[in-house]
């Protein structure tokens, strides 16, 4: 028996990649991609249905496709194309409600995978250093994408209660980075000079897009032996990078600003529509956020291929060189090492170690 997979949000890079990948799986018969706008990339032969998940029409699409696995990727922080924040919120929250309503009526649905984000934990100085899946947030996100994800997860929990026969996996992704990722953090890191909050050096965690595709695939199939793929899981690469480390590895200088100035500049930039520097983004870049990934390894049985540092290195390679390339700085230090002493011949080799 083959599976019919319905994927929402396929007009985005991530959705497109996932559709192309899952189609190659032998036990998948048919993949149906759904989005409000036609994707610019190809879907590898998957069927595309242009439908807005905010409209009740999604129920008909679901019934016609006879999908047994729903992968809901249309929970995102950045609007696609010309959309604004209000329509984005509507897609995230109302879209999820409509989709879940359609799932609840459908007798064929067996499995639901929802893309969430570690944004649900918020970021506050009073939070523990490492969040587990059960840590209650000290300060619930007050708005923006973070609040959307909290609400989406609430509806998904309600659905899981009403349909206990459906396996529900909620994947809380850390900041997704990679050569093609179009997340707010990626656009932040591509600024020539990184504005930071003075006196704070947040801890950041990244997950590589390849790992995202892989873990979505694991969650949308039957669980492997000894693992369980329903429940809520934090998904992040191993290790932690500080923002200062990120900027140095990217070779982009930072401009520390006082917190009120950052908030003000963020709203100015947002008004001008240059980049989505939302309040929750500022909170993340102030206090940072680190999640525990024990559940992901032990219960879900997923080992990420990339650590946080490797993910960032891969992302940095795809970016152009910054104003202060680390290689140039390292070279300068090596030249200093070779300079002053008579016996400087062997110092550079030592310092290179």
């Amino acid at each position, binding site marked *: 028996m083959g599976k019919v997979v319905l994927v929402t949000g396929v007009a985005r890079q991530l959705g497109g990649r996932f559709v192309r990948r899952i189609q190659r799986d032998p036990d998948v018969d048919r993949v149906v991609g759904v989005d409000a706008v036609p994707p610019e990339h190809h879907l590898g032969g998957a069927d595309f249905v242009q439908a807005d998940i905010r409209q009740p029409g999604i129920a008909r699409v679901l019934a016609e496709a006879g999908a047994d696995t729903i992968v809901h990727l249309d929970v995102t922080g950045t609007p696609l194309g010309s959309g604004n924040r209000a329509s984005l919120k509507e897609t995230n929250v109302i879209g999820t409600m409509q989709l879940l309503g359609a799932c609840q009526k459908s007798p064929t649905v067996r499995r639901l995978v929802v893309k969430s984000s570690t944004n649900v934990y918020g970021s506050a100085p009073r939070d523990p250093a490492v969040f587990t899946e059960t840590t209650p947030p000290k300060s619930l996100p007050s708005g923006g994408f973070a609040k959307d994800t909290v609400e989406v997860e609430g509806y998904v929990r309600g659905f899981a209660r009403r349909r206990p026969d459906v396996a529900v996996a909620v994947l809380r992704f850390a900041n997704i980075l990679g050569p093609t990722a179009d997340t707010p953090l990626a656009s932040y890191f591509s600024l020539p000079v990184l504005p930071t909050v003075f*006196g*704070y050096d947040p801890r950041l965690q990244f997950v590589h897009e390849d790992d995202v595709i892989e873990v979505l695939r694991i969650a949308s199939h039957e669980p492997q032996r000894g693992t369980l793929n329903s429940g809520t899981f934090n998904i992040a690469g191993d290790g932690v990078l500080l923002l200062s480390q990120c900027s*140095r590895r990217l070779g982009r200088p930072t401009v520390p600003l006082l917190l009120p100035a950052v908030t003000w500049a963020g709203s100015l930039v947002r008004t001008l529509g240059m980049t989505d520097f939302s309040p929750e983004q500022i909170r993340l870049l102030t206090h940072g956020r680190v999640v525990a990934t024990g559940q992901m390894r032990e219960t879900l049985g997923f080992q990420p291929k990339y650590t946080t540092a490797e993910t960032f290195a891969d992302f940095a390679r795809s970016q152009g060189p910054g104003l202060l390339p680390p290689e140039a700085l390292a070279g300068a230090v090596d030249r200093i090492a070779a300079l002053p002493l008579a016996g400087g011949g062997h110092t550079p080799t030592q310092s290179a170690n």
Partner: protein
Amino acid sequence: MADAKVIPFDDDRSRGSAAQRPQRRRSAGNRRPGTESAPVREVQPLPTRAVPQDDVPVTSDEQPPQGSGDGDGGLERRIASGLAFLRRRLTGDYEVDDFGYDEELTDQVLMSLLRPLYDTYFRVEVKGVENIPSEGGALIVANHSGTLPMDGLMMQVAVHDNHPAGRHLRLLAADLVFMLPVVNELARKLGHTLACAEDAARLLEQGELVGVMPEGFKGLGKPFADRYKLQRFGRGGFVSTALRAGTPIIPCSIVGAEEIYPMIGNAKTVARLLGFPYFPITPTFPWLGPLGAIPLPTKWTIQFGEPIPTDGYPPEAAEDPMLMFNLTDQVREQIQHTLYKLLVQRRSVFF
């Protein structure tokens, strides 16, 4: 008082100039055997505050050559390792753990900044360091005093510099620390984390040495008249965390921190306005402005007591409030008792 100004300047200088780092670091390494002969050092008369402070840069400049033996090669190696350090820092090629602890920065820079204060200013004498296990998790529980949490920092240096395995102490700090800019950044890099059961349990599970001061602000901001009187030990959460992890509790008594800022009053209105738990008024602060914020050069003793094992209890013991209170009291009594003993032995506050 004019000479006391030296402290911040000295700190700034060493932070600013990269060239000085390797020298200070090497000197720090060499100083460790020096602190073991603490009784000899302690006898040094310290007539004024000025002398030890002015000494600091000089000794650290002079010590390395005699320590590393061969003059030229040692200097060269130091410069090379200093440049390698600089290179790693500039290119971001270093590691921090999940809590943001930057071991390299702590060992090479931040500890060397604290060491003059530890060695020369407070002349910390450490006793009972053999009570700290050389591996595995342990919870060090200490008294808290001194208006500013200087005692925690000194305890961190004391453990690292005196323990034969050079263990790093991971302190649990109040949430206020993580709200203040700059302070939170330094605290995280020094390996501190928020005092909550989750973080403590995670660190103990990783086999780290965790330091906690359960008195919190009640101990830190108590009036001078109440010095060396232990306050309530929170709700004893530290005991249940240690019980769950099965790690020993090591009581630690710190003498000398109480007198660094004798708090004779508390400006509650100012504190409320600033959002601080208290606003200290000492004989010098705020009357002398920033000068009044210079701590008194008291002589410190840090004594680590006999470990209290917790691995003999059944797993459900962590839920037993009666046992919790008993163990909390036991730890508290032991610290208080040692405090009194150390106070009796102390010749003077300043020597």
